């Protein structure tokens, strides 16, 4: 199997507080993985460790077989291979929609202005935000911001897209538009790693569901198995709690 990212014995603690314990986990090319679990179970931290926004306390992360925690490894180049979408959007406030998608291509990937604009426009079209290229982030709604954030990440043409609770900060009526875009992306064969509370989405779209609890991966498997007959008691408990709502 051609695994793109392989996490081995990963642990992370903030001071005394241990958030991740001995995580083993891999992402294969073209796979859509949803990470679910209650708040504080370490899902977001795992995602942030994968692109090194948090420095792991222990363990190894391999990308295409290379150990990215090695001191000599260029983490800036590695990060361009991962597109990150945040819960709080984090669009660059000083740029308009188009420039948000252009600046990284220009300054990090060293593409030409023309090429960068074409690429940006292509992905803004994918997320349905190409009409808004002149708008500043503060002029957009939450759902629109998140779609632009997705286009910004796509514009770097990464190998994997990481989504950190992309719909948790949105008003309920805007969740749909973002999930639809993500569904389209999954249909295009993109490799995606998604931390989410949207169980319906996970069920529909994921190839594999990972359930995390108290800093460990409690269970993983096909969505049918996880949702219909979970092997573990705590998975069952969690699912009955969230599906009730």
């Amino acid at each position: 199997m051609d695994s793109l990212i392989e996490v081995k014995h990963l642990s992370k603690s903030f001071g005394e507080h241990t958030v991740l314990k001995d995580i083993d986990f891999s992402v294969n090319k073209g796979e859509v993985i949803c990470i679910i679990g209650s708040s504080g179970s370490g899902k977001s931290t795992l995602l942030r460790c994968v692109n090194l926004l948090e420095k792991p306390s222990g363990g190894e992360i391999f990308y295409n077989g290379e150990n990215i925690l090695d001191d000599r490894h260029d983490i800036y180049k590695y990060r361009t291979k991962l597109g990150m979408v945040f819960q709080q959007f984090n669009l660059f406030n000083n740029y308009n929609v188009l420039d948000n998608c252009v600046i990284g291509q220009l300054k990090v990937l060293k593409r030409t202005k023309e090429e960068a604009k074409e690429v940006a426009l292509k992905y803004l079209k994918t997320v349905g935000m190409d009409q808004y290229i002149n708008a500043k982030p503060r002029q957009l709604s939450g759902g629109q911001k998140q779609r632009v954030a997705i286009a910004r990440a796509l514009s770097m043409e990464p190998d994997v897209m990481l989504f950190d609770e992309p719909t948790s900060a949105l008003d309920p009526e805007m969740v749909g538009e973002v999930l639809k875009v993500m569904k389209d992306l999954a249909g295009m064969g993109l490799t995606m790693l998604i931390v989410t509370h949207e169980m319906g989405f996970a069920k529909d779209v994921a190839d594999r569901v990972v359930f995390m609890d108290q800093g460990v991966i409690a269970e993983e498997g096909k969505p049918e198995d996880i949702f219909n007959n979970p092997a573990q008691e705590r998975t069952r408990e969690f699912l009955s709690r969230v599906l009730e709502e």
Partner: protein
Amino acid sequence: MSFTRIAQTFADYWPMFLRGSWSTLYISIIGTIMGSIIGLLIGVIRTIPVPERGIKKIIVIIVNAILSAYIALFRGTPMIVQAMIIFYGSAEALHIDMNRTFAAVFIVSINTGAYMSEIVRGGIISVDKGQFEAAQAIGMNHIKTMRYIVMPQVIRNILPATGNEFVINIKDTSVLSVISVSELFYQSKSIVGNTYHYYDTFFITCIIYFIMTFTVTKVLRYAEKKLDGPDNYILLGNQMQVEKPEDHVKKAKAAR
């Protein structure tokens, strides 16, 4: 006091007032700009994450200590005393005969720099952490993150405080008369030496100072508005089909 006497003083001595005003403006503009550059540089340096080990860590710590000392020293002593020490000190101890205008600009610059680095630090802290993370997530290093994402926002946010520094500088250059820089206050004193009309002369001086500070305030407010851009945006490719996004990008390309 009478209005005619004020008018007379102005009519007789306007070239001196003009020269003094020019000198004051010149020193405070260059001083504020240099000070802001110093402040921005120090702001970037002081926010470099400290490496965990090695020689780099020691260098970062030493540089930070030096910069902190600089800020503490120049914020903690009056500019009038700094002027004395730097100008006469360099002459007596180092035998350097500094050009007075250069000395004035130098003193105002490093003094403003000390204040600005604290203002910039505040500006950097006030930028949302998510902006740094998003920049790092697309592969930018510290310098690029600062240069393209954080600093533009910091500059916008600190513009009111910078305007404040500018206004203070216009007024505070008057203390440089102690090293005989021929700025507005020094010129006014010279005029009084001729006419002995203290009130009339300094009435005019007061108005000139006010006009300068007021204008600067207004210009900076205008700059803030310009930087914020328009409140509205044009929706492209709408039902009227006026212009498609592709056309817009192409047109922008052609214009460049």
